């Protein structure tokens, strides 16, 4: 019987529609640019962007090549993200187990949560400078909350009988956290890490747009000041690709963990 959606498509049909969609997208884009409806300086053709992308891999722009800027952004991201996970996951587990800690941390966390991560930029620059410390704080501000929330929820909703069984056998607090709560909330933690990675990567780009002298965000600002739309778009593509790779890597870890039977 019919559910939603009403009609079913064969795989071939779906691919055909998808191809049409993508061709339409690039076609309209090219047409707008080639026909002069939008000046080429503001909307370069997809081909221009692709060739600029290749060019940026070998010619330095704003002091370094595209991959060097990406590498420096990625280093910042990795530090901030790992810091977020290193604080968020243990704290989430502890809050899931010790009620007092939950009651103390939650109101503070809730008060801070509504500050957009990017609003930390001025303090981050003031406290840690604009080199690596400042951006790390901003990535942390983006990546930490989902880690904490997901770990906490995972730990909080572990089935009672599992915990009671462990307690009945006289398991201590530490071992319950490490051997019951942690394995049982792995799926939730990894889902949180994926959200964290996305928000952290995005916060980093924002931070680099405002304060930084290297990295892809800085590169985009320079390109924007030079009115080089093709460069801005190439960097956007590069940022999207790296973001995608990070997500693919985490998904791969998720699948690996699931296969080992933790989740």
């Amino acid at each position, binding site marked *: *019987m019919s559910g*939603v959606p009403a009609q079913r498509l064969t795989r071939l049909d779906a691919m055909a529609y*998808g191809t049409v969609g993508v061709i339409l997208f690039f076609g309209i884009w090219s047409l707008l640019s080639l026909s002069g409806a939008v000046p080429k300086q503001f909307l370069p053709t997809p081909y221009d962007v692709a060739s600029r992308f290749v060019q940026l891999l070998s010619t330095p722009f704003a002091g370094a090549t595209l991959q060097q800027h990406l590498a420096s952004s990625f280093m910042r991201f990795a530090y901030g993200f790992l810091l977020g996970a290193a604080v968020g996951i243990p704290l989430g587990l502890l809050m899931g187990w010790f009620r007092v800690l939950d009651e103390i941390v939650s*109101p503070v966390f809730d008060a801070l949560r509504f500050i*957009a991560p990017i*609003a930390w930029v001025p303090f981050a620059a003031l406290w840690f400078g604009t080199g690596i410390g400042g951006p790390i704080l901003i990535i942390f501000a983006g990546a930490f909350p989902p880690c904490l929330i997901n770990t906490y929820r995972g730990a909080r909703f572990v089935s009672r009988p599992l915990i009671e069984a462990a307690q009945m056998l006289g398991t201590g607090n530490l071992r319950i956290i490490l051997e019951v709560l942690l394995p049982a909330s792995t799926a939730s933690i990894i889902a949180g890490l994926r959200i964290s990675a996305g928000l952290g990567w*995005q916060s980093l780009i924002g931070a680099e747009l405002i304060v930084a002298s290297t990295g892809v965000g800085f590169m985009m600002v320079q390109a924007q000041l030079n009115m080089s739309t093709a460069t801005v778009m190439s*960097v956007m593509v590069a940022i999207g690709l790296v973001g995608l790779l990070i997500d693919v890597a985490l998904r791969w870890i998720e699948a690996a963990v699931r296969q080992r039977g933790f989740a």
Partner: protein
Amino acid sequence: MSRRFVIGLTTIVALAALWYVATIPLALISPGRFPSPVDVWISFRQVAFAGYANGLLYQHVLHSLKLVVFGFLVAAGTGVPLGLLMGWSRRAEALINPVFLLIRPIPPLAWIPLAILWLGIGDAAKIMVIWFAAFVPSVINSFTGVRTIEPSIIEAAHMLGTPRYRFITEVLIPASAPMIFTGLRLSLQASWTTLVAAELVGALYGLGRILNVAQQDIYPGMIFVGMACVAVLGWATTRLLAEFETFSLPWIQMAREY
């Protein structure tokens, strides 16, 4: 009063006291790094009554609020219908989804330089960036909302010969409404983040402008006031949306009250 409330309140009061003691009597934290409560109060009075960064506090707040609300409404007004359409029709999904997947990995904040190139640092650029940022969660969640409707509900509607228009307004939208609201909440958060970032990069008014000028002036008290305003507005608009959700979905509320 619940135990949770008492402990929470105690923590907040203790932190506030600690903040006061560490900044003023003991001077553990230098005023150039983090403001004391008195600094914050002075900064607040300055921006509220004398003005800072081109305007009074209420002007900045209204300006930011206007852009967020407008951008959010544009995003929700386009994103939710698109998501519903993609959920309803496999053809629409097959046509649009690949393009959507191509663009989606680009974080919303990465659109800011392009928006400035195209539209300058005025309101139009901000609305464009907010639209791009808030669009994605609206689409995804509306789409998921439609796809997770129980088939039996749809079959019942079909069996009773519900006409298409009534099917959409009385089955499709109400049944996916909880997911739509989840999407809207995420969209709203994305709107605030993006607006603050866009205003930090370049603006004449707004909360991001306050933060930007305060950063250049190395003025911790004003940075604090700017951040507090961002938090309060983010909280208030989220709250408003939640109220609207309970108001428009009374049946969900009844199911929750057990």
